[in-house]
C-alpha cells in the first residue's frame, strides 16, 4: 500500500521546464512506460505522470536470472523487477510484469549466438528494441488502450513533414540512437522518449526530486544477458559444440597460429592473437565460419570504403531512400564518430555504402546507421559478402 500521495498530483509543474524533459501534456491520456528498474526508465515514468499522463508501468521479464525453481518453472523476480515495482508504488501508478522470456530467447539470444557462430559481431540491443520492445511491448501497450509507449532511451523524437523523426540524444555521450536505427516510422508514431533532451546528471536530479530510490543506482554497461561481459560463455551455452578451434592465417592462407573459436574475435581486433614473429602488428581482417579461420593482416589492410548492408530501415524524407543514393554520415559501430559516406539502395532492402575515406573495423553483424547531423536517417546490418568484395 502506498502511504504517500501520488507525485503526479503533488509535484510542482515547473520541473519539466527547468530540467528540460521532452514531454507533451498528457491530459489524462494513457502512457505505457517500459520500466526496467533502472534510473532512466524510472524517471521516464515520473515525468510522464508529472505531465498529466495516466502512466502504466510494464516490466519485461527477459531472463530467469538463474532463479529457476526445482520444478523448472520460474517464479522469482530479480532485483530489477523489484526496483521497478517500488518506483511504480512511489509514483502511485499501476505496474505489471510481462513474461517475454520465450520471445527474448528466440528473437534476441538465439540470434545473438547464431550471429557469432556465423563469424559476425552482433548488436543484441538492436534486436531487442526491434522485437520484444517495439513489437511485443508496443502491442501490449495498444492492447491496454495506451496512446503511447515511452522508454528511457536517450534519443529525441520530432514531428516533421513526413511524420515522426528520430534524432540523436542531446548529450553525445549518452546518445542511444545507434541502437534504435531499426525503429519504423509506424513505431515512432506511438513512441515517446522524454529523456532525449537531458543528460545523466539531470536525469539523476529528477530521480532525486521524485524521491526514487534508484536515483543512485549504478548503471550497467553489460549486455543484460551477458553478465560480466563473457559473451563467449553465453554463446557456448546456447550453441554447444559450435566453438570449433581453427587456424589463424594471413591473407595468402599461410597458417600463423591456432585459435579456440572464431567467436572470440571481431574485425579490427589486435589483442588475443597468439601469433608472433610477424614484422608488424597483425589485426583481424575477417572471420571465415566455414573453415573456422581467423584471417589476419597488417593495419593497412584493414581499411575499407565499400560494403553492403541488409534489412535497411529508411527514416529520412520520403517513403524510401532516394534511388540515386544519398549523402549521409554513418556510424559503423556505436563508439564511432560519424564519417561522410554515400548510401545507394539495392534490391531486397539492401544498400551499398561507400565511405569517402577508408575506415577500419567494419564488422559484419554490426549496424551501419545513417545521420544527417543529429537526425537519424535509418540504417542496416553490415553484410559479410559485400565486405569481402570491398
Amino acid at each position, binding site marked *: 500500500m502506498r502511504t504517500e500521495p501520488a507525485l503526479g498530483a503533488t509535484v510542482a509543474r515547473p520541473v519539466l521546464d527547468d530540467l528540460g524533459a521532452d514531454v507533451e501534456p498528457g491530459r489524462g491520456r494513457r502512457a505505457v512506460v517500459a520500466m526496467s528498474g533502472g534510473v532512466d526508465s524510472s524517471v521516464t515514468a515520473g515525468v510522464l505522470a508529472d505531465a498529466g499522463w495516466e502512466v502504466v508501468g510494464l516490466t519485461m521479464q527477459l531472463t530467469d536470472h538463474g532463479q529457476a*525453481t526445482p520444478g523448472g518453472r520460474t517464479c522469482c*523476480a530479480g532485483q530489477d523487477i523489484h526496483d521497478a515495482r517500488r518506483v511504480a508504488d512511489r509514483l502511485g501508478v499501476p505496474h505489471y510484469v510481462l513474461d517475454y522470456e520465450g520471445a527474448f530467447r528466440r528473437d534476441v539470444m538465439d540470434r545473438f549466438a547464431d550471429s557469432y557462430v556465423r563469424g559476425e559481431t552482433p548488436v543484441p540491443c538492436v534486436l531487442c528494441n526491434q522485437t520484444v520492445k517495439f513489437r511485443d511491448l508496443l502491442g501490449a501497450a495498444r492492447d*491496454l488502450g495506451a496512446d503511447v509507449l515511452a522508454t528511457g532511451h536517450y534519443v529525441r523524437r520530432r514531428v516533421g513533414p513526413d511524420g515522426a523523426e528520430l534524432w540523436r540524444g542531446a548529450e553525445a555521450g549518452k546518445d542511444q540512437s545507434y541502437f534504435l536505427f531499426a525503429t519504423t516510422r509506424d513505431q515512432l508514431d506511438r513512441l515517446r522518449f522524454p529523456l532525449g533532451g537531458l543528460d545523466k546528471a539531470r536525469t539523476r536530479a529528477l530521480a532525486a526530486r521524485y524521491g526514487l530510490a534508484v536515483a543512485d543506482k549504478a548503471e550497467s554497461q553489460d549486455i543484460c544477458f551477458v553478465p560480466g561481459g563473457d559473451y563467449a560463455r553465453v554463446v557456448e551455452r546456447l550453441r554447444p559444440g559450435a566453438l570449433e578451434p581453427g587456424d589463424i592465417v594471413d591473407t595468402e592462407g599461410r597458417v600463423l597460429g591456432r585459435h579456440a573459436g572464431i567467436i572470440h574475435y571481431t574485425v579490427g581486433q589486435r589483442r588475443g592473437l597468439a601469433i608472433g614473429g610477424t614484422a608488424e602488428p597483425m589485426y583481424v581482417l575477417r572471420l571465415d565460419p566455414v573453415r573456422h579461420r581467423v584471417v589476419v593482416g597488417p593495419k593497412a589492410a584493414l581499411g575499407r570504403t565499400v560494403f553492403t548492408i541488409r534489412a535497411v530501415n529508411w527514416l529520412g524524407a520520403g517513403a524510401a531512400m532516394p534511388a540515386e543514393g544519398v549523402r549521409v554520415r554513418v556510424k559503423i559501430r556505436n563508439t564511432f564518430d560519424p564519417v561522410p559516406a554515400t548510401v545507394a539502395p539495392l534490391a531486397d532492402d539492401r544498400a551499398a555504402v561507400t565511405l569517402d575515406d577508408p575506415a577500419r573495423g567494419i564488422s559484419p553483424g554490426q549496424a551501419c546507421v545513417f545521420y544527417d547531423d543529429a537526425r537519424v536517417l535509418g540504417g542496416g546490418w553490415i553484410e559479410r559478402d559485400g565486405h569481402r568484395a570491398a
Partner: protein
Amino acid sequence: METAAVYLDHNATAPLRPEAAAAMRAALDVAGNPSSVHGHGRRARALVEDAREAVAALAGVPPAWVVFTGSGSEANALALTGPGDGPRLCTAVEHDSVLRWVAPDGHLPVDADGVLDRGALAGALAAAPAPGLLSLMRANNETGVLQPVAEAAAVARAAGWRVHCDAVQAPGRLVPFDMGSLGVDLMTLSAHKLGGPAGVGALIVADGLTLAPLVRGGGQERGRRAGTENLIGIAGFGAAARAVLDAGADEPVRLAALRDRLETGLRACCPGAVVHGADAARLPNTTCVGHPALGADIQLMRLDLAGVSVSAGAACSSGKVASSHVLQAMGLDAAAARRAIRLSVGWSTTDSDVDRLVALWGRTLAD
C-alpha cells in the same frame, strides 16, 4: 465515472470477514502468552482454544486434531515431511507447496477435466517399494475441479499408505465438509481462503499419527509446531471458521448461482469462450475461462485498470503471469493455457460484481 472496485479473486485470498476482523481487534487487547500460567496467559490460551474448537467443528474433527501453523503451505510441508521418508505421490495439479515435496515421477497424471487418473494411482501404488504418503487436493485452486479423495484414499489406505488432503479451497464451498467422510489421515486448511487473515493455517492430524515437527523448540501445539501462537491470526481464523459454519448449506447454493450467472454471461458475450474443467464436478465458486484471442496477462491488466481484480493460474511472487502447470497437466497446449484467467467468487461477491466483469470482458472481445 468512478466505480467501486470488484474483487473476483477469492481463491487467492478472500476478503477478511467482518467477524474475523472483530475477533482480531478484540485479540489485540489480550496481552498474555498462551503458555503462561497467569490470568493474562489463560485469557490468551482461551482464545486459541476457542478458535481450535471452531476450526475443528468446521473440519468435523475433535479439537485435539487441529495443529495451527503459519500458513497452508507450512501445513502442507508438515504433512508431507512429518510422517517420514517413505515414497510420496500426488497429482500433477497440486499446489506448488505440495508438488515441491514429491519427486517428479510421483506426480500422477490427470484427465482432460483435471481429475486424477485412477489407473495411474493403482499402478504407482503397486510399483512403490513400500507404503508411503499420498497427497490429493480436495479442489483445485485454478479450476475448482474436485478430486475423488474419498475413493483414492480408500484404495491407498488399503495398500497401507497414509493420505493427506490439501483442502484449503473447500470450506464454505463444499457443504457438508468434514474430514471423516474423506477418510484421510491429514488435512490442510488455510485461514485467508475462508475470510480469515493470511499468516495462519492448520494441519488436521488424525489421532494416533506421530509427526516430526518442522519447527522445534517449545511444546506448543502438542510438540508438533514450536513457537508462540499467533494469537491474533488464530482468533481471526476461528471467527472466520465459525462464520463459514453459520452460513451453512445455503452459501454454496448462492455461490453456484453467482458462478452460473457469470458463466452464462461469458458464454453469451463470447461463444468461443472455453470454461476449463466444466464437465467435471467442481467448486461452486470457481471459473477458469479461456479467451479466444487475448493472453491472460493482457486480460488481467485491462481488467485491473478498470478496477476488477482476477488472476491467472496461481499467484506468483514476481507478479509475472506464469503459464499454468494445472492446465498443461489437463492437456491444454501452452498457448491455450496462457489465455485462461481464473474468476473466483465468495462471501462478499454480488450479482453486480459479476455483471461488471462480464461487461468488461465482453469489451476485450470487441477491440
